[in-house]
């Protein structure tokens, strides 16, 4: 298990009655949860459960139909759903990070690794090339990418490296919350293990908070303090990770846990 959440702080993120409908189709419905500093929560469920929709609403990529997403930002406690686009974009560049499932959506494939990491710094006004480069090198090391590859294009990286590059490019502004959409999907298991290891170290070193969407329960157990189980757009069970996985009480949770093959 990674790190220890601080029970004394105000919730960093508070999602209240969040719903997203696509016409009649329910994306997610009446979602409520809180995230404290240093906490990693997992949102698990199968395809179509609404977990990615939920994440996109929190990130401000999708406008929810109802509800609020309160974020304890540097400018105070604000509702992201009521923020204007300029403010949202600024927050998503500095105070939150979003790692997409497919690196192609989260990186500029035609820009070098260093450029990808440096972009947020430059967007926030950093104008010293050497300083940008130094910071980029440091982050490459942190996510275990060979610093000699700073000028290489992400196209030349393996899937796992691309994901780690995405993480570095997001963490460079030291965001309070990282949102991750299935970061380990499609990766070979050994690559996955490395990515998880890197993430766990980052969470404990940086006291990072994370919302991790995954359908992989093993990843959820390793990474997350608490889990929310979603089905058909609703949260059907939530609690401590080991409690949910060792003592699943709702029918769907039991089905999910029992379906996992153990080698």
């Amino acid at each position, binding site marked *: 298990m990674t790190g220890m959440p601080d029970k004394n702080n105000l919730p960093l993120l508070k999602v209240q009655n969040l719903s997203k409908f696509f016409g009649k189709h329910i994306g997610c419905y009446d979602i409520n949860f809180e995230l404290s500093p240093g906490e990693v929560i997992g949102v698990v469920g199968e395809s179509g459960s609404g977990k990615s929709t939920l994440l996109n609403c929190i990130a401000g990529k999708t406008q929810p139909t109802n509800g609020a997403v309160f974020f304890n930002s540097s400018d105070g406690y604000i509702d992201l759903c009521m923020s204007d*686009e*300029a403010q949202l*974009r*600024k927050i998503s*560049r500095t105070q939150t990070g979003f790692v997409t499932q497919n690196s192609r959506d989260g990186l*500029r494939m*035609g*820009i*070098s690794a*260093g*450029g990808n990491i*440096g*972009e*947020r*710094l*430059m*967007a*926030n006004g950093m*104008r*010293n*090339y*050497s300083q*940008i*480069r130094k910071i980029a090198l440091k982050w490459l090391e942190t996510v275990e990418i060979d610093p000699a590859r*700073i*000028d290489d294009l992400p196209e030349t990286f393996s899937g796992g490296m691309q994901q780690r590059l995405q993480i570095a490019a997001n963490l460079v502004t030291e965001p309070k919350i990282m949102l991750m959409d299935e970061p380990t999907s499609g990766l070979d298991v050994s690559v996955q293990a490395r990515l998880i290891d890197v993430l766990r170290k980052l969470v404990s070193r940086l006291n990072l908070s994370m919302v991790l969407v995954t359908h992989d329960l093993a990843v959820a157990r390793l990474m997350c303090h608490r889990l929310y189980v979603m089905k058909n757009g609703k949260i059907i069970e939530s609690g401590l990770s080991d409690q949910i996985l060792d003592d699943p009480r709702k029918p769907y949770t039991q089905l999910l846990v029992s379906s996992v093959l153990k080698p």
Partner: protein
Amino acid sequence: MSHQYNFAYLDEQSKKMIRRTMLKAIAIPGFQVPFGGREMPLPYGWGTGGIQLTAAILGKTDTLKVIDQGSDDTVNAISIKTFFKTTADIAVTESTKDATIIQTRHRIPETPLRKGQIIVFQVPIPEPLQFIEPRRRETAKMHAYQEYGAMYVKLYEDIATYGRIATAFDYPVQVNHRYIMSPSPIPKYDNPKLNQSPAIHFFGAGREKRIYAVPPFTDVKSLDFEDHPFELESWNEPCSICGSTISFLDEIITDDEGTRLFICSDTEYCQKRSQGVGS
């Protein structure tokens, strides 16, 4: 058979539409204003944007100079001059100081412009972020929210690849501390001329249908990094014809052994200097 054209080819309504766009462009320095580009008697890529701008503002008392890569007598410059002589019967000149309107492709004249002059630039690609961010919806937002990180990323990439900012022309500038603009493919040598100039600068892209402008006495700053500041080009030799060391020089290969000459790109400037005439 004589051709009966409206003055300067375009109909008056079209001219009014373009002028309205130009006023908007002046009001928001460096911002690309879309306009309803008209069908012109030459294809895209040959200066239709610039020509529409010139046509919209040309008056009977104007004197027009047209240059292409600094030269008054290339085919394109001559063609455009002839076009306006035929359709508007206005005076034309090669002298920078005598012109009221200067239409240019890829250079700003060496002779400093004065108050009351208008310079019209032909622009192929108006969007400076085009090659980093191809989605137009995204670039519109980036300009609107002043999110120019990606522009600096491009310069960063240059330094990472070449050790210095390799962009030699169409070097991005920030206008009036707000919008980032492509100054058209002029050499970076010409960028400083835009800063606090007494003349009006208009930029027209015919294919992309965008007009933008830099009003007189506006701050125009070339982008750079603190530790890689903006630098002008320099040459080891003066102009072979007039001896100038303060103008942009073209490099001309004169024979198969690789003998080369450096000659002022601005032909009028070079001629005046050789004749010993002040500019």
